[in-house]
């Protein structure tokens, strides 16, 4: 029984820990600071569909943990499936994958320097005032 209580306490702690550190924010360099997107719109944007806001996605590398979180919480697909999807899109001439930068710091730098750029970052990232949070994962 004691072990069970320990286990439940650990489980509770781990889920609390997860909710604190595993959130995702989607941040854009946009003059229209009133923009908020639904999860589906964010998913569509990062899967290459054209959006009326004129935003252009920038992504992290496949092995990046923030990307893994984004895949899980927002896109809802495995990295393998996302790679397969881009192979199909690229080699049928339909869509091209988002520009990829090396890490979270590079995402911030890229966003600051490119009007219309949009990227995802861990929820605990300090977002500069020049950028707008347009989506926060639950």
């Amino acid at each position, binding site marked *: 029984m004691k072990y069970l209580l320990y286990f439940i306490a650990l489980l509770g702690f781990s889920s609390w820990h997860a909710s604190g550190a595993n959130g995702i924010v989607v941040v854009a360099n946009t003059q229209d600071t009133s923009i908020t997107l639904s999860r*589906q719109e964010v998913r*569509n944007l990062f899967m290459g569909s054209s959006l009326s806001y004129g935003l252009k996605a920038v992504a992290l590398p496949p*092995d990046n943990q923030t990307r893994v979180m984004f895949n899980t919480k927002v896109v809802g697909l495995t*990295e*393998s*499936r996302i790679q397969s999807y881009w192979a199909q899109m690229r*080699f049928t001439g339909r869509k091209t994958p988002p520009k990829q930068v090396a890490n979270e710091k590079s995402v911030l730098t890229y966003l600051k320097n490119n009007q219309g750029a949009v990227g995802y970052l861990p929820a605990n990232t300090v977002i500069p005032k020049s950028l707008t949070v347009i989506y926060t994962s639950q």
Partner: protein
Amino acid sequence: MLNYNENSPVDDFKCGNNYFLLFTCLVFFSGISSSYADTEDNLKVSGFARVVMGYLDDKNAEYLGYDNSISLDQESLIGLQLDYQVVDTLAVTGQVIGHTGAQRDSGIEWLYLTYHPTKALKFKLGRQRTPFLNYSDVIDVGYAYPWATLPQQTYPRHFFSTFDGLMANYEISNNEFVLNIEGYWGGFKDKVVVAERIMEAETTDFRGLISNLAYQNWTFRASYHQGRTSVDLDDVVQFSGLLGQLGFTQSAESLATVGSTEVYQLSVNFENIDYFVRTEFNRIQADFVFVPDSDNYFVSAGYNYLPFSTYISYSQNKTQYEPAATDIPIGINSQLDIIAFSYQEIFNQLPIDSSEAFTIGTRWDLKAGLALKGEISQLNGANSDRAFFTVNDPSFDRKAILYLVALEWVF
């Protein structure tokens, strides 16, 4: 419209049946980083390669070229794609593929211009892959799908080709769904294999409409394609003419070598982090003798457990020819009997490919852009049918197990 690229007019990039060349190609392109090499800002070089090893457990037949020896040269290939952005709204794309399979030609698969007047609208003009089914235009990019090979029952190899023409694509996107609508028009001329005969075929007024809807974790695709095909079969034309002169018009018309072919397709996919379900159905209808009507489908379900996914699939096709006419009387005189027998013999020789396949397989994503797959398929057909087998011994029971291992790569 039904095409088997036996000999393409474009044949300037050939790995042929040459393991060494394939290996050299792989080594050469492995120097390029794993995803998208930008040699210049406007020029993008990308590619794909696959090495597929197969073995059929029966010495009395072959299937997709595989027999009861381990072979690497049936479906292995390498492709290279160049995209050059001329200006913001205009790009040129070229794709060459080198096949090891003797039944597939190497050469230019794509060469087209893309014009993008708005974000939602796109036109492509030139040589393109025909987008009959969900994976038709990436049938050679094995990395793009979970299976080691697309089910022959739903994706028969004689069915795919390029066409020369114009394609338009329009996208509607909102906070609920993304809808893509494509329409194309064009034609092609090539050598084809129909009913085990190689012949010249020309398809004109070839057109299609494709809708693709993505809603949450669902993807729906529905399409319709049609074309008017004429095949070059002098002996059949002469025989049909003779039957017409003798007044056997039904028999004469049943041997038409010109006619339209229609393809209907519907696919539904559901996928999330943990699992996927994919299914696709297509119907092919033709109004000339050598192309059978067929209903084809597959259902596949898979479970993802990174870096693996394991799947089971079932695929089936039913093939049927128009029945032979019966207006030539039998038993009146020997000359008429010879004509009736010759006429019947044409129909008796038409191969029936009705069959089914049960498949189980696993895909292992070694890293982004590189996957290894293993797959086992139980193939079943009726004793009287060809069932996509090349039968070496007539006593073969049309049942065999196909083992495949595939290494898939995109860069």
